């Protein structure tokens, strides 16, 4: 990773030593999990470049944009509507929460039995290693699970520009109205922050950009149904992760180019995994950079991940916003419609998720579903138990895994995953 940005990092207030150790571990992880693997699509070179400059060039771009008066808005959840941010010509970045950092410090603020994702956000903040967080003009938290909801109360002390968005918990009319009014409130906040009046035309532009990005990701997702799978699950996960902080237009172009290449690969029957390799659908909690543990273990064991039923994956990019509306109200309603379909486990009840897993596993011709729950994540773990029963009744092989970001349980996980792969192959 490029280190020629020391001054920029210092100006952002990063702790250079801690930041250096983060970059080093990212670098090693990236080399082992990605660069050293064979048979990757050539167009992955774009992603490799983006990753090598993730704290460099991309941050420089953000700072240049800020200098020209644009704003940067950070988010922790796929419920934060990117369309509104883009409509105000602001930049949206997903904040990654995929590694343990400064755990001892974090556990002075949060109980040990908090999910790794939440702790990670605090770790990055407390140790001053995330340039995205420091560059953001506004950080959006959302009231989803109890862990996040309560943790944001503490996070606000560390990140005064935190804006908390409330979210419904039920898919009822009242729930929908609530989402609508929260999105309206967010629109006003974004207008105030940017000084831009979000007109219908601007909103349509924002919707257009997001739709194109999601359509490219959906195209990629569909191509993975081919056997042999044209791209590894690790590379596909990386693409979905990068989708959260790359420039949307450039990213969309790059992914479509990659998809063109994958189509050729499919025609030539050249896969990222051998013909007939067992196919796995991953389902559950989000996997943020650099959380690559589970797909890495699965693919090391000879199987291939063909889909992620997760926010970094299908749940994040599924469904487009209808572009038929003309007024701002109609367009806002279309945005609410799209987001209200997200089948996150914080909703109760959440039956759509089960049917969607079944649908995905059939469409992608998966041989089994691995459910990934982050330790202490009640919504997903509680949901996974009845899911297991019900999917098994429909003859879908299902393995539940509970883990965190540490590498201590790799041996155990490897045995479980290998045994599951033996069963389904």
């Amino acid at each position, binding site marked *: 990773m490029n280190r020629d940005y020391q001054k920029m990092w210092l100006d952002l207030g990063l702790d250079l030593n801690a930041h250096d150790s983060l970059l080093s571990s990212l670098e090693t992880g990236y080399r082992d999990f990605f660069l050293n693997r064979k048979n990757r699509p050539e167009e992955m070179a774009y992603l490799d470049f983006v990753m090598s400059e993730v704290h460099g060039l991309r941050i420089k771009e953000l700072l240049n944009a800020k200098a020209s008066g644009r704003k940067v808005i950070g988010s922790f959840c796929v419920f934060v509507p990117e369309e509104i941010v883009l409509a105000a010509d602001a930049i949206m970045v997903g904040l990654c929460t995929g590694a343990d950092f400064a755990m001892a410090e974090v556990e002075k603020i949060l109980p040990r039995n908090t999910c790794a994702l939440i702790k990670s956000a605090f770790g990055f903040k407390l140790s001053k290693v995330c340039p995205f967080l420091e560059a953001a003009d506004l950080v959006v938290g959302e009231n989803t699970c109890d862990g996040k909801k309560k943790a944001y109360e503490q996070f606000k002390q560390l990140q005064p520009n935190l804006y908390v968005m409330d979210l419904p918990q039920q898919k009822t009319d009242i729930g929908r109205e609530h989402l609508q009014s929260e999105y309206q409130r967010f629109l006003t906040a974004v207008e105030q922050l940017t000084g831009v009046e979000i007109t219908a035309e601007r909103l349509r532009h924002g919707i257009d950009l997001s739709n194109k990005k999601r359509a490219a990701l959906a195209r990629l997702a569909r191509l993975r149904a081919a056997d042999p799978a044209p791209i590894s699950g690790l590379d596909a996960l990386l693409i979905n992760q990068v989708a959260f902080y790359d420039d949307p237009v450039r990213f969309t172009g790059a992914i479509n180019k990659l998809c063109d290449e994958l189509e050729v690969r499919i025609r030539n029957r050249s896969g990222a995994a051998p013909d007939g390799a067992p196919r796995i659908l991953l389902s559950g909690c989000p996997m943020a950079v650099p959380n690559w543990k589970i797909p890495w273990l699965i693919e090391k064991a000879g199987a291939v991940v063909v889909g992620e039923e997760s926010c970094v994956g299908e749940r994040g990019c599924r469904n487009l916003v209808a572009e038929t509306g003309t007024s701002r109200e109609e367009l806002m309603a279309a945005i609410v419609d799209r987001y209200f379909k997200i089948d996150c486990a914080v909703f109760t009840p959440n039956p759509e998720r089960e049917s969607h897993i079944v649908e995905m596993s059939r469409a992608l011709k998966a041989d089994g579903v691995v459910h990934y729950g982050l330790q202490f994540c009640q919504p997903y773990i509680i949901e996974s138990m009845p899911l297991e029963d019900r999917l098994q009744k429909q003859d879908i092989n299902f393995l539940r895994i509970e883990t965190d970001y540490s590498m201590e349980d790799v041996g155990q996980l490897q*045995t*479980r995953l290998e*045994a599951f792969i033996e069963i389904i192959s």
Partner: protein
Amino acid sequence: MRCAGIDLGSRTIEVVIIEDGKVVVSRQTETGFSPVEQAEKLLAGEHCDRLLATGYGRHLFADTYDRKTETVTEIKAVAVGTRFMFSEADLILDIGGQDAKVIALMPGGRVSKFEMNDRCAAGTGKFLELTAMSLGFPLDQLGQEALKAEKELQINSMCAVFAESEVTSLIGRGENRHDIAFGLHRAIANRAVSMLKRFPVAGARIAFIGGVAINPCVCRLLEEELQTALLVPANPQMVGACGAALIAAQAI
């Protein structure tokens, strides 16, 4: 044709060699601090046409001993090994040095589902080992000693570390160590039963394997609670290695 299976577990390593469908070599050693060296010693002087490694040290072994060695998980290995010994088994309870698992078999012998305990040593051989130590019994007699109990004490903690402090306080209260040992065995049996109950146990023929299956007290308590006779092989620790050898033989 000689095919060997090697099972590198957390406490012990076993080798089984099969020739013409019969077990011709069956050996065991401690895992110690360098499992691969121990495994090499165990295999020294044995010619075999094919070798398959299983157990938690399988990859380490395959990577260092001989890169051509193939591996299989202990789940599949014990499934095959158990069926070889008991063709009627439908559930396997395997309690080893550091983990406990339950494996369900389909009529043809394939694994249909399995569960493993999580990261800690609660309810495993390690728990018994610590127990034996704190009560001053040799590990290989712990079960017999526990069966001499005259009353049953309740042990609440299943965590190896907390149970130890519970034991200390029971000793402090003047309780008899046989009774304490019995309570600890009951705790292990209860935990195993609750793991088994996540599977269809009614009417199932259950094989009990792994190092803890040598313990007569755990066996008796399990049989009482499950109200069925368990299928326990003569040497419950060899099942994984035997299964690996059989898989090696099948694949030729």
